């Protein structure tokens, strides 16, 4: 049981950009703007020109239903769009089309690995809305002399996923985000690697204070840092006898601090009302068919991996925690031994990738298969296999070439045998120590064999041969 000594309550609002759709949510502008100049993917609708009207992208609604179902939400019978009226230069119409009453789905949950084991985080609602544009400030927002606006992002389909305040530590918040992203990638509606794909606002309170809303968090790591900072800040305020007020704070990613945004614009009154230019949706009837088509989600895949491939649960969990890794694994395990594949992908490859800040895309499954094949046929040693993987990541090439270049082929038995004989001849002291019962003396003999074979001998095999000759 986790004590939660400070009474931390964290709720997250995650904005997910449906960047795998071909077009924006209310207009036909292409979503493929990431490498293009500013304001080159805009039309009268997403630029908010007078007289333009929105029309809903059917695929965006389907994606929203998929997300709702994957988060165990109820898809509502009647859903509609509202205007949220507020002013910001990234908002071309002076209001955002979003949902308010009657969101498309609500009342779900996901399971995360909590401070004390499996932990349930409630999903209040997952609703559709449009993304504002992108603002560029010269330096920081508070110092910049002007604001530059790029509306390419304006009108991208967003799903806002609002959690209940069920997370009790920044670590749980991060795990929630990891899990959520993983689920979304499994649904294949979102590419988390694209800029701005997933943005987070966090609500956090500690015992004895009001909640603060932290905006401008753009990474999972950032969320954890912002929340850690905020807990310390709120505790300090209370310790000094102050009051933690309800407010919006801005996360300064570079300085890893949160700043108060208190200003006149705080007096929000969003004046929600139904968007007259869009008609309601009655699409709960779509849910059963979409549910049928829903891909296998991480938890289900993890269980299947354990059953189907006979691998350890820890390995299954690690393999399924990223959709691309799970796919990579299954492709390898189709051909190679599933257990050995799991060990090498989880224990070696993932570590090497993390160390280099690379994703699984940096490694070809054909290379993984070659490495495993070389190992299984005892042509290389385990150390050699690790060397190949590292070299592939650092310099590229093919496993075969690397084996040749580095001379990693395991040496033949008689060469080891000759080396063992030489070692015995050259180290009479070690031999007599061993014979006198000092088991450790064998290690120096093994080391000598390895040296003579330039590491290409298998250490275990060398040990066996030495024991045979000394026996």
């Amino acid at each position, binding site marked *: 049981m986790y004590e939660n000594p400070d009474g931390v309550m964290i709720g997250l609002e995650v904005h997910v950009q449906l960047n795998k*759709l*071909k*077009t924006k949510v209310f207009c*036909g*502008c*292409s979503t493929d703007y990431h490498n293009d*100049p*500013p*304001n*080159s*993917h*805009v*039309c*009268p609708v997403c*630029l908010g020109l007078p007289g333009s009207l929105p*029309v*809903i*992208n*059917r*695929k*965006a*609604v389907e994606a929203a239903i998929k997300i709702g179902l994957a988060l165990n939400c109820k898809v509502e019978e009647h859903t*509609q769009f509202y205007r949220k009226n507020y*002013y910001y*230069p990234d908002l071309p119409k002076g209001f955002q089309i979003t949902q308010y009453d009657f969101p498309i789905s609500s009342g779900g949950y996901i399971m995360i690995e909590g401070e004390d084991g499996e932990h349930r985080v409630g999903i209040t609602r997952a609703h559709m809305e449009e993304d504002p544009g992108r*603002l*560029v*400030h010269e330096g920081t*927002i*508070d110092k*910049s*002399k*002007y*604001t*530059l*606006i*790029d*509306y390419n992002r304006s009108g991208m389909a967003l799903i806002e996923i609002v959690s209940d305040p069920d997370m009790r530590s920044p670590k749980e918040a991060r795990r929630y985000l990891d899990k959520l992203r993983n689920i979304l990638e499994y649904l294949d509606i979102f590419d988390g690697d694209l800029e701005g794909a997933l943005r987070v606002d966090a609500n956090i309170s500690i015992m004895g204070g009001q909640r603060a809303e932290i905006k401008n968090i753009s990474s999972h790591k950032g969320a954890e840092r912002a929340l850690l900072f905020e807990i310390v800040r709120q505790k300090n305020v209370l310790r000094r006898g102050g009051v933690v007020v309800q407010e919006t704070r801005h996360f300064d990613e570079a300085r890893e601090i949160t700043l108060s945004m208190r*200003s*006149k614009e705080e*007096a929000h*009154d969003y*004046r929600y009302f*139904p968007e*007259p230019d*869009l*008609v*309601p*949706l*009655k*699409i709960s009837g779509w849910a059963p068919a979409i549910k049928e088509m829903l891909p296998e989600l991480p938890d289900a895949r993890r269980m299947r991996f354990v059953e189907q491939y006979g691998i350890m649960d820890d390995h299954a969990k690690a393999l399924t925690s990223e959709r691309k890794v799970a796919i990579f694994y299954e492709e390898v395990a189709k051909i190679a031994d599933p257990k050995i594949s799991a060990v090498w992908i989880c224990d070696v490859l993932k570590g090497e990738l993390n160390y280099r800040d690379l994703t699984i895309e940096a490694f070809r499954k054909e290379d993984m298969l070659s490495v495993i094949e070389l190992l299984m046929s005892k042509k290389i040693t385990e150390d050699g296999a690790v060397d190949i993987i590292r070299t592939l990541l650092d310099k590229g090439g093919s496993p075969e070439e690397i084996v040749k270049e580095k001379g990693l082929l395991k040496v033949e038995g008689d060469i080891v045998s000759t080396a063992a004989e030489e070692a015995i001849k050259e180290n009479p002291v070690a031999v007599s120590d061993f014979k006198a019962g000092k088991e450790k003396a064998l290690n120096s003999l093994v080391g000598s064999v390895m040296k003579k074979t330039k590491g290409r001998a298998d250490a275990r095999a060398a040990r066996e041969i030495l024991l045979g000759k000394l026996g």
Partner: protein
Amino acid sequence: MITKKDLEHIGWLSRLELSEEDREKYTPKLNSVLDYFGELDKADTGGVEPSYHVMPMSNVFREDVPIASLSQEEALSNAPKNQDGFIKAPRMM
């Protein structure tokens, strides 16, 4: 009844800068209209559903097929200030 003070708040919510003179001028006129709207209170609307839309339409969609966007030049053609392809707005704070 709205007061001149209320009007300052409504003006801010509407992003309309109102001078003292404006507030003086608008307050009685707005109140006369609100007075008139008081008529609404007399209508019995118990159990009546609001009509957000006049036609009972639902489920209007477009397909996820891209159409040509404006060129950057067209997009910026009406912007009073722009820079390097961006629309230029004043500082935030």
